[in-house]
């Protein structure tokens, strides 16, 4: 049965190993706790050069999302997971377009907008 499933691809979250499943969740929990505490620490410490903190927070968040995908959702690069990975890649692509596209466009509009007092002057 298990070989049959392997041959046809598996759904996300399906872990075919019978041993070490519980361990996978505990290892994931360990990583996630460390990364979460690191984020909270990084946002309130003075040790780190302040302009670098947002980048560090971004890296920690993306790392933790990866940990959750691998250890909780059991997404991997195994050949039988190609469909899941492709769907995920497309999802990440759309998310990136939406978030960064919106931010760039809005910052650009904001930059090119006439200051409000000038606008009022022109209307007189």
């Amino acid at each position, binding site marked *: 049965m298990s070989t049959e499933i392997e041959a046809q691809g598996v*759904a996300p979250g399906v872990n075919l190993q019978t041993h070490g499943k519980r361990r996978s969740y505990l290892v994931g929990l360990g990583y996630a706790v460390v990364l979460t505490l690191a984020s909270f620490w990084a946002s309130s410490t003075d040790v780190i050069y302040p302009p670098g*903190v947002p980048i560090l927070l971004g890296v920690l968040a993306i790392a933790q999302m990866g940990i959750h995908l691998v250890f909780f959702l059991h997404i991997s690069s195994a050949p039988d997971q190609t469909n899941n990975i492709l769907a995920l890649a497309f999802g990440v692509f759309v998310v990136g377009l939406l978030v960064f596209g919106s931010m760039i466009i809005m910052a650009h509009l904001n930059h090119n907008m006439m200051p409000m007092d000038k606008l009022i002057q022109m209307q007189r």
Partner: protein
Amino acid sequence: MSAAEQALATGDAVPLSLKGPAPKRVVAGYGFWLFLLSDIVIFAALFAAYAVLSGETAGGPTAADLFDKRHVLIETACLLASSVTCGFGSLAVQSGDRTSTYFWMMITFILGVTFLSLEVSEFGHMLMIGAGPSRSAFLSAFFTLVGTHGLHVTLGLCWLIVMLLQVTTLGFQPMVGRRFFCFGLFWHALDIVWIGVFTIVYLGAHL
């Protein structure tokens, strides 16, 4: 004997196109995975709105005035722990163990309710001090983003109750297993969205 029949007879060399549809569990899981990704796209739109509007406070309270980091750390801990207990519960469902299914899923439920009550109390406090969604564009974006996540958690908790009732009435039938499996995916995905929320909304507020 055609090439296809020959391939089927020898067994291991069967091409993918001749194997027929994938098992129902794989199809259901993949379909739900696609739904989750589209759900994450909705959250991405709300994140984009928040990122654009987070500075537009219209003279009202700013993010740094409103958010308490310790409160958020407790919320995060609840959601992370519930993700792990949900994983243990899914393993119990797979092995057909009724007692530990109830045990782990009830813990998941309690942690989810704790998270939700912390969030509701935070929202209530903000409404009391006049920082409701109508105060500024920043607060509208905040309540939409975090509220949508909270709504997902609420629906997840309702789903969990229905699943526990189905284990009681229907037992561990294949369809109950598939539904529980999809619930697990949903719950883990909500935790992934929460990582974005606490990083961008709550930790980003204090930079």
